[in-house]
């Protein structure tokens, strides 16, 4: 972990208001694990004041680069989208607790919306370990699934869902999951909007399948110092910190009610 000035190597608009940003940062790449994130300063001014967390979408050891896949949703990501090649960005990372990898298992990877972002790195890592991987990606429309091809390399079973039916199954990724469960997976990995995570958690509990969820929370420090990015825990730990106890949690560790 450290703070680095990372040079922008490539920056590509993928779909309406979603971008792929590649940063040169070998120090982070060397240590990064799937499910971890980086904390980025999106501007040099005080607007916005805080950094913004983004999952590591993929790494390229040869280029010493990591990529993030992000959507423009507000001021920070809007400013980020205007950053040019060769500009430097201040990056903290790699941060947080990533996914626990499995070996020789039958796993399902579920990504919904921008929750697709961390799943590519995860898929790559899982594919190295002799797992049987099913990947389920969902989005509003086919535009939201433009990164699907990068996933195809890591699985023979890539299933897509869109709300408007413009690509793959018309409906939610949770519906795809329900079918996949008949295949008796032994591990679920999920990242996506809260309603999706709630459903995945419910299904995993019902079926008794271990399940790892990547959560989001508003962050300040990003490194466990401010105690700001809490979610609701279960059992002893009242309020786990998403940035350092997570972002990846076992489904049973967290309470997703609002």
């Amino acid at each position, binding site marked *: *972990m*450290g*703070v680095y000035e990372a040079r922008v190597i490539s920056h590509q608009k993928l779909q309406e208001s979603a971008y792929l940003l590649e940063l040169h940062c070998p120090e982070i790449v060397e240590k990064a694990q799937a499910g971890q994130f980086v904390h980025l*300063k999106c501007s040099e001014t*005080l*607007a*916005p*004041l*805080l*950094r913004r967390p983004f999952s590591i979408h993929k790494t390229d050891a040869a280029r010493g680069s990591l990529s993030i896949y992000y959507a423009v949703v507000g001021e920070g990501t809007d400013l980020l989208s205007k950053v040019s090649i060769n500009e430097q960005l*201040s990056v*903290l990372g790699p941060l947080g607790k990533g996914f626990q990898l499995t070996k020789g298992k039958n796993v399902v990877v579920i990504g919904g919306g921008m929750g697709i972002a961390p799943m590519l790195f995860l898929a790559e890592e899982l594919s190295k370990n002799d797992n049987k991987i099913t990947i389920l990606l969902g989005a509003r429309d086919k535009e939201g699934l433009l990164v699907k091809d990068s996933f195809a390399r890591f699985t023979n079973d890539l299933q897509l869902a869109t709300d408007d039916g413009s690509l793959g199954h018309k409906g939610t990724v949770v519906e795809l999951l329900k079918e996949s469960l008949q295949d008796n997976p032994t591990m679920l990995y999920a990242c996506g909007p809260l309603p999706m995570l709630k459903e995945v958690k419910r299904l995993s509990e019902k079926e008794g399948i271990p399940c790892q969820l990547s959560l989001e*929370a*508003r*962050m*300040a*420090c*990003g*490194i*466990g*110092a*401010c*105690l*700001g*990015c*809490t*979610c*609701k825990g279960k059992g002893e730990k*009242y*309020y786990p910190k998403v940035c*350092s106890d997570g972002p990846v949690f076992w489904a049973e560790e967290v309470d997703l009610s609002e």
Partner: protein
Amino acid sequence: MSKAPDLSMEIAGLKLKNPVLVASGTFGFGMEYCDYFNPSVLGGIMTKGITLEPRPGNPPPRLCETPAGLLNSIGLENPGVDDFLASYLPVMKEKFSTAIIVNIAGSTVEQYAEVSSKLDGVEGIDALEVNISCPNVKEGGMAFGATAQSAAQVVAAIRNETSLPLIVKLSPNVTDIVEIAQAVVDAGADALSLINTLLGMAIDIEKEKPVLGNVFGGLSGPAVKPVAVRAVWQVSQSVDVPVIGMGGITGAEDALEFFMAGASAVAIGTGNFTDPLTAVKTLSGIEEYLTEKGYASIKELIGKAWKGS
């Protein structure tokens, strides 16, 4: 060739190698920042607020960014004084060769007193910072800091229990901060910290309800700097004890404003989040400034804007 300027400072009998500290609640117990720099280069570390019993803190969401500011409603989540002494302090002592200032809070005068008595005489603790100004918990903070009388009462009770240097942290959410400052000094404070956060809130217009789980939060960051500088200016001219200034410092220029307004040391809070290196950069920026302007010691700057040249 010019000599390096003298950055050392003495506050309430506490010798600091330099006057740049990190503010309570923004630096944990120092461990998290070790990956980014060595906290021992700083003048001191002010710990997260410690209470008698462990506290879970407030329900999430606890953070809301605002223009040039941050609202937080952490609510004094902390392991409690016993666990702090058993698990955290030993690591801090071992890892850090800099002043360790333990920030304390409580819900009753008795709790403040009891925490202080447990911390008194413990090796490795250099000073106490008493938070009577936390807007984030119903009891145990702001209520005591709101009137001169209750503030003095808390401070007197703590003074009774400890011979550690006593820094009392004041709230800006009052009509007359000078009155409160004078009262706590009379009650035994050796130094003052100001400011704590401003009471604020934000509303999520999509959800049509407050953003923070706790409704109210404390506002910090550059947005509040003008209020903090004003408070330091007013208080430092009215009391005979040193003032530690904080509120929105993100670099040396901000810190210099505080010194010239009357602060004897500064603390970086929210600025740590923008850049974990803010405190070290502030320190080196101050040193450069002194060298450039030919000041022999940081002490020459304290209160310069009201003392004149």
